[in-house]
């Protein structure tokens, strides 16, 4: 006889096949000290296979968090303004009417790029400003890779300038399909087109005025008291 002990309720030889107080019965098996059977053994019919490998692909929930129903809407608080990145394809919105603005390019000490200010029409005629204002066409664009919107101000004051002329051509082409704008020395910009179509862009949910407001946020000159004007006049 093995020296096993039948758990919390040790069983003697006399206990075999004797009913317990709760009505269950004890039986002996060849190798165990004792087995306690319940009064009734519920029978459960298996509903389906328990083998996870039977159809493992069906158990794969994926992990594409971008399509799982959690929607977070991003609200833009600002938009970049400038020429397109030469490495990225972009599209431009085809405008029914061009939006022409006058801007003031305020030099930034230590930076090659000036800060561009929108100047309110009421100030355009001021002789002290007229000489520094620049006429630009504002083109609304988005990049292909990131869908990031930006505003492209193209100078239109100097039609003989190769940079301006080619930029306008590229902006026009960008209204029809994705293009890339790459510097080409004295020729101005060159245009690069994808060999295969890149599909339609995802445009941001912004009105034209919202677009411009975000692009010129904090950079609107609507008074002669604006610090940029005061600086221009030597007041600061």
């Amino acid at each position: 006889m093995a020296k096993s002990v039948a758990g919390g309720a040790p069983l003697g030889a006399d206990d075999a096949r004797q009913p317990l107080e709760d009505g269950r019965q004890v039986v002996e098996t060849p190798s165990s000290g004792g087995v306690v059977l319940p009064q009734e053994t519920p029978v459960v019919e298996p509903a389906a296979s328990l083998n996870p490998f039977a159809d493992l692909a069906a158990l794969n929930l994926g992990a594409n968090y971008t399509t799982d129903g959690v929607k977070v809407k991003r609200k833009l608080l600002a938009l970049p303004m400038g020429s397109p990145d030469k490495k990225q394809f972009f599209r431009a919105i085809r405008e029914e009417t061009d939006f022409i603005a006058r801007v003031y390019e305020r030099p930034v000490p230590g930076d090659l790029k000036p800060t561009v200010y929108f100047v309110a029409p009421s100030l355009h005629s001021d002789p002290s400003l007229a000489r520094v204002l620049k006429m630009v066409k504002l083109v609304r664009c988005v990049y292909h890779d990131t869908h990031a919107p930006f505003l492209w101000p193209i100078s239109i004051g100097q039609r003989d300038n190769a940079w301006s002329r080619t930029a306008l051509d590229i902006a026009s082409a960008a209204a029809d399909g994705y293009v890339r704008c790459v510097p080409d020395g004295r020729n101005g910009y060159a245009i690069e087109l994808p060999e295969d179509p890149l599909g339609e862009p995802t445009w941001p949910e912004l009105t034209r005025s919202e677009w411009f407001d975000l692009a010129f946020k904090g950079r609107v000159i609507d008074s002669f008291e604006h610090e940029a004007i005061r600086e221009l006049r030597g007041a600061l």
Partner: protein
Amino acid sequence: MSPLDAVREFVSVDFEFSSPSGHRPTVRCLAAREHRSGRRHLLAYDELVRMKTPPFDIGPQTVVVGYFLSAEMSCFQQLEWPRPANMLDLFVEFRNQLNGHTLPLGFGLQGCLNYFGEPLIEEKEHWRDVAIRGPETADEWQGLMNYCMQDVDACVGLLPKVCAYLKTHDDLLRALLRGRYASAVADMQHRGVPIDMPLYSWVTGRLAEIGADVRNEINAKYGVFRADGSFSMANFRRYLIKENIAFPLDVDGDTPLMDEATWSDVVKYAPQLQELHQYRQTFEGTKNIGRLAIGPDGRNRVLLGQFGARTGRNTPSTTEFAFGPSKWTRSFIRPAPGMQLDYLDWRSQEIAIVAALAGDEAMMDDYRRSDFYLAFAIRAGLAPSDATKEKHRDIRAAAKVVCLGVMFGQSAYGMAAKLGISTTEAERLLRAHKRVYHRFWAWSDAAVDHVSVRGVIRTCFDWRLHRIASVDEAATKKQWRSVRNFPSQAHGAEMLRLACTYAADEGLPIVAPIHDAILIEASVGAMPVVSARMEALMRKASRDVLRGFEVDVEHTFTGDGERYVDEDGKEFFDRIMGIVGEPPDHPAALEQLPPKAPLVVKYMQ
């Protein structure tokens, strides 16, 4: 209706056993209870060894239940019983529904009972001690078996509570998938990693004597130790400047951080510090060397700690596991005579995972090229299209830091510190990454959104991490980084478990899981076939996790009679061997093993 209703029978099982460090378990007794029939089985060792199968059904209609089931499966192995068709580990399921939380009594059986308001099991320590030394009297035998039955009955009561979070049959199947890993773990713990015992004893027995010699040798290279052997921080700073190594500094921005985690991170991008790092690990106690858990057969066996990390990765002891301590010590690993080792690892596993999960075609395309980091640099315009690893070493190194850093949300500031470049330059690299892999970024941001909104993130096979609200700013920041990192790590863990499970089911000789790799051992003649099959299973596991996307597998063979070599540790190992010399061919070397304390009988109870 609970998905558990579809199971004809559950059988909760528990063994009591003794398992001294590195040994296979010595089984004392088994307790089991069939849930629906109420049958119970209490058997002592001398009965168990006579049985060719368990005294209960282990067929396809029955699920075997346990708490930290790999321990039970190790006893199955030891008794040479066939493995159950279905396994469900209550530890794993309990952990899964609360992963991320910190529980007052942890995730062990007692912690689980406490969480569900069940009475705790008393006198655990006492009966654990009895199991280790072996019962000596009839009363002790009865007491131990009663105690064993208590654990079983605890599992019977816990099953519906722990598994209440499984709502569908598919949820149950995924739990059974997790449960099957216990059997693979038991396989690996049973085999153990082969250790060159004469070498191990010889070298570890002399470490105390050779510290000064090693220090003097490496000081010629680093110049950071004073004549009295103390570490000079001023000299170390000078060395860092000379080598142009960006080393993380303390909060005052003055003193290099000297903790192990910082050093482990730094040597990844400043490999010239490897030897100094390994010297510190070996002789300054930042890692415990010479405490591997080795059995009398010269095999290293440890509890592999399945699902021990929040990501679901294994967490074996870093001092007792052969792959835990300083990398040079991996050369103590040597295949048994007539055998070979193959270390198969998934190439750039984490990159492949995020590329596939995010559906980022550009990233997947770059992964398929031989050098992902260089492919990124070229795509981003950071390197010319004909760039090579040799000619564009610096930009490749920078690309690697960026590509790996973004996976756990590292900032441009952190990358700049690692690369020794300006933050502006690091931001430029980061922008380039965002531009070329914008789908990855949209997916990674969505993962963060997902956790923000739902409070939980999960893998494809439903391993979960819960976000815990915390007022601790540093903890919160760390948690968000964990969220970013979770998909790559947790799916890596899924892949490893799946591959190990496939291999165990086919009886392949898996020896150890190592993060993104699996070590196998086979005879010289069998290795080509075994190795090829293991690779096929690892590739299949990657396709199963990533819905068809295949992750490459690379091999590192260790031939019969050779020592395992980790490239990062080779130089230091050779230096050590240059000082101590080869071990004399004398059996006395075998007697110098340090004494081992017995391990606790059950993990985390």
